[in-house]
C-alpha cells in the first residue's frame, strides 16, 4: 500500500536529499484550504486587514501548513506508516507568492529492536533564502533483504 521510494541499504549517514520539487506560487488559496481542512481559522492566515494591522506585510501561512506539506515529502520518501517521529519548529513566515523548497539530511542509521531506522533533519526555505521551517524525523525503512 505504500509508495516507498527508498530502502535502508540505499541511505548513508550524511546523505542529502535535495531533489524534491519545490512548491511554486504559494497562494492565499493554499492557506484557506488548509484552514478549512484543519479548522485553524486564525485570521492572520486569511484576512489581510487583520495581518497588516499588526504589522505583517500580508497574510502568511499556518506553520502547520508548511509542516503538513513537508510531511508529505517525507512520507513519499520513507513510506506512509513508516514514520516513527516527526518534529518541526517554525522559523519564518511563508508569504503568498513564495516558492517553498525542502531538503533532508540523513543524520543517523541504526537498528532499533527489529527495525532498520534512520534519523534525518529537514528544512524548508523560501526563494529569498529565509528558513520557514526546521524539522527532524525518524523512520523505519524496509530492507532489500
Amino acid at each position, binding site marked *: 500500500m505504500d509508495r516507498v521510494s527508498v530502502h535502508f541499504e540505499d541511505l548513508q549517514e550524511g546523505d542529502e536529499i535535495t531533489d524534491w520539487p519545490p512548491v511554486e506560487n504559494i497562494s492565499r488559496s493554499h492557506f484557506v484550504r488548509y484552514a478549512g*481542512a*484543519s479548522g485553524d481559522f486564525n485570521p492572520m492566515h486569511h484576512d489581510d486587514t487583520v495581518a497588516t494591522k499588526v504589522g505583517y506585510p500580508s497574510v502568511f501561512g499556518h506553520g502547520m501548513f508548511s*509542516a*503538513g*506539506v513537508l510531511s*508529505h515529502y517525507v512520507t513519499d520518501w520513507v513510506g*506512509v506508516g513508516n514514520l*516513527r517521529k*516527526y518534529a*518541526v519548529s517554525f522559523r519564518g513566515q511563508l508569504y503568498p507568492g513564495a516558492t517553498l523548497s525542502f531538503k533532508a539530511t540523513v543524520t543517523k542509521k541504526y537498528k532499533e529492536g527489529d527495525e532498520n531506522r534512520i534519523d534525518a533533519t529537514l528544512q524548508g526555505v523560501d526563494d529569498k533564502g529565509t528558513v520557514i521551517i526546521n524539522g527532524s524525523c525518524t523512520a523505519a525503512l524496509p530492507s532489500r533483504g
Partner: protein
Amino acid sequence: MVDKSIVGTEMGGGSMVVERGKIMEFARAILDENPVYFQETDAPAPPTFTMAGAHWPSGSGGGGAKLADLGLDLLRVLHAGQEYEYLGEIKAGDSLTSRAVISDVSEKEGKRGGTMTFITSETTFTNQRGEDVLKARTILVQTSKAAS
C-alpha cells in the same frame, strides 16, 4: 513570566472520529496526492492529521484547564513547534480520544531582549480499542512584549 507550577496541569480532553472525507480533504490541503489517502477502506491518517481535531468539541467542559486559566496572555502566544511520536496506526473509521497535560515550561532570553517562555502541551491519542496510537506535543512560546 509563566508559573512553572503549571507543569502537570491536565488540559481538557477531546474526542474525534477519523472520517474518510476529512482524510481526503486534509491530504489535498497538504498537496499530497498519494492514492493511499483516497482509497475506499482503511485510508491512513496523514502524519499531522490530528490538527483537524480543532473541528471537534474540545470536551473541556468536562474539566481541565484552558490556556488562559494558566496565566498565559494569548495575545503574546505563538505556535513555535510541533512534535509527533507515532505509536500505532490511525485509519479512517477510528474513534480517538485525547487527553492533554502541560509537560514542560522553560525560559530563554530573546534576541531583542526580553524573556521568551516555552510551554509544551503533550496530548496522547487513544483509539477505540484502548491502544495509545499517537503522542503529539505542541510547543507554544509567549514573548515578553506584545507580538508585532
